[in-house]
């Protein structure tokens, strides 16, 4: 295989793995903002909570990494319902700015709480043997953990796609994103739908938080550290669009990885340059409604 093809394949592979992480963590934010217009800056805090639950389950209770991911997602999904019913609900009719204030406040509190329970030292998780090491494909070897990310990502996308496009609830959610008033007037319980999607989005964020530990480590400031990245994916993809979020995650993941590989000196520029270019051309993102 010629050298440039090998490089292209490895950029695609690494970029894809990164994109899957971006997609899993951001898709919930996109749906919440698209469906209710709710600016949830505490989204990263749910991801962080997921990460810490995975740390506790694997380290203290000795549960395997993969089951821990699932348990963390379910737990955070349930916890998020409490927040949604107790706090978020009061502000659906409020301005974006008040939502920003509330959710940033929650994120700050989450950081301090995590510091209290887990301390400021970054945590890592023990991975099962099959996720360590690499897979050799002859011309190049690939880290197994990244292959796992890609497989998991594709599986999740399939499930989400099916749920959104082929089930009754999915149809209702799409209807509500398109036109909330109309959806309400034909008898769709948008409030309930929102609670469900909010829980799902938070659960996915938690999953993303758990997956991120191996990539970035986990410390309390995770709650706000990568928020800009998630917001970029959401904005570039278009609010409330599954397809858009996926495309945005892929574009950003691959171009960012490629940029770092080929032009490391300007590594920080790429992600912001893509954001600006895409938004100047398509202000509502790839699949957002103008």
């Amino acid at each position, binding site marked *: 295989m010629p050298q440039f093809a090998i*490089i292209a394949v*490895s*950029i695609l592979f*690494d*970029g894809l793995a*990164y994109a899957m992480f971006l997609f899993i963590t951001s898709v919930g934010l996109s749906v919440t903002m698209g469906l209710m217009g709710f600016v949830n800056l505490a989204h990263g805090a749910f991801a962080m909570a997921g990460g810490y639950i995975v740390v506790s389950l694997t380290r203290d209770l000795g549960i395997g990494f993969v089951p821990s991911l699932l348990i963390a997602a379910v737990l955070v999904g349930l916890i998020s319902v409490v927040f949604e019913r107790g706090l978020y609900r009061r502000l659906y009719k409020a301005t974006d700015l008040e939502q920003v204030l509330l959710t940033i406040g929650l994120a700050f509190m989450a*950081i301090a709480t995590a*510091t209290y329970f887990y*301390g*400021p*030292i*970054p*945590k*890592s998780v023990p991975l099962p043997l099959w996720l*360590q*090491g*690499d897979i050799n494909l002859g011309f190049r*070897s690939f*880290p*197994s*953990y*990244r292959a796992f990310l890609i497989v998991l990502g594709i599986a999740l996308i399939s499930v989400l796609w099916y749920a959104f496009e082929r089930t009754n609830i999915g149809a209702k959610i799409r209807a509500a994103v398109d036109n909330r008033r109309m959806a309400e007037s034909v008898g769709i319980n948008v409030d309930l739908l929102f609670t469900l999607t909010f829980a799902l989005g938070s659960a996915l964020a938690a999953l993303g938080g758990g997956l991120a530990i*191996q*990539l*970035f*480590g*986990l*410390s*309390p*400031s995770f709650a706000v*550290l*990568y928020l800009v*990245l998630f917001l970029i994916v959401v904005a570039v993809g278009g609010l409330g669009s599954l397809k858009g979020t996926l495309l945005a995650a892929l574009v950003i993941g691959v171009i*960012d*990885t*490629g940029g*770092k*590989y*080929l032009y*490391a*000196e300007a*590594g*920080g520029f790429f992600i912001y340059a893509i954001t600006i270019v895409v938004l100047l051309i398509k202000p509502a993102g790839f699949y957002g409604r103008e």
Partner: protein
Amino acid sequence: MRMLKWAGVAALALTVGGTAQAEKIKIGVVLPFSGANADLGHQVDKAFDLYIKLHAKDIAPHTIEIVKRDEGPPTGANAKTVATELITNDKVQILTGFVFSPSAIALAPVVTQAKVPMVIANAGTAWITNLSPYIARLSFSMWHHGYPMGAYAFDKIGCKTAALAYTDFPPGKDSTEAFKTGFEKAGGKVTESIPLGSPVQVPDFTPFFQRIKDSKPDCMYVFIPSGAHATGVTKAYGELGMRKAGIKLIGPMDLIPDNKLQDMGDAAIGTIVMGNYAVDLDNAENKAFNAAWHKEYGANSYPDFMSAAGWDTMHAIFDTIKKLNGNVTDGAKFIDAMKGWKTKSPRGDVMIDPDTRDIVQDEHAMEVIRKPDGKLGVKVLGTTKAVKDECKVLKLGRCGT
């Protein structure tokens, strides 16, 4: 009112006369207790607290009072505000801490104006000590590790070529510059130099390292901040199978901070670093330091090089207080008394250089191994005694002024 107060003090001094008076010395501690780098602040703070707890009696009859403030993000401005207020409002006589170089840089004119000694426990940009005669540093300059590592990598590790990768902020640039200077002087060739993005967010290291892997240098010298970045580097290095590909991971000790080493797994084994401290250093002071640490903070808490610097910082402050018999109101005198201070520290022999007020210390080349008890640790491959900050020795750039 103020006159009255001074009159009171004078009267008091008269009545006490020549006998040793018990002074209460106020020390301001400025460390990042919150934010993305909070763990660095806590590593130093724990060492401070431990030293004070064990040695408070040494300075009797004098006592100290510690006022802690959050250094905040590395903007310089925040640390400058809180430290200025420690001087003006809390009336501290000594300032210490300072993890981030910008904090120390921003504050330098203030301590010069206020004549308050500032004893740095971490901030490693080489030329900081030149900024004010009231600054002394007990930690290191980036050149302490980077420069000797250059020659060592070429002569002993067998790196004929090396790729450099560094977090894109001044300590990173400083450290790679130091390595490059030493490495090229020894005859090595640097193949490429790659910035790794911001010190705040941990990036995905894979694309950077993949690129280095494809260019096949003998060694890869990496500088990153010793927080969450360190674990990320080892993991990406391990996942990509770079050791199997024959590329050795080398760097300053920030790569393998002791409090994160156990989490790094087999990927870390074989990493060779240059540094001033590891929990496995074999000397009596270090054994006592570790025993005290574990007794205070539990078996699973480890000190690291930042804690060791914190420990020595407080040690130097205490010794100077003793030397001056508690009379620390004169900042210039305090710094003078600190010059030439030396001790056997957990890090080895350390001394404050009377000329530069920077630390002179032993540098150890260390390799990560799996110890007989199953834990990860380091083996000391060699020690260079009394290493000075080479940047100031060579008078490079700002270090020369």
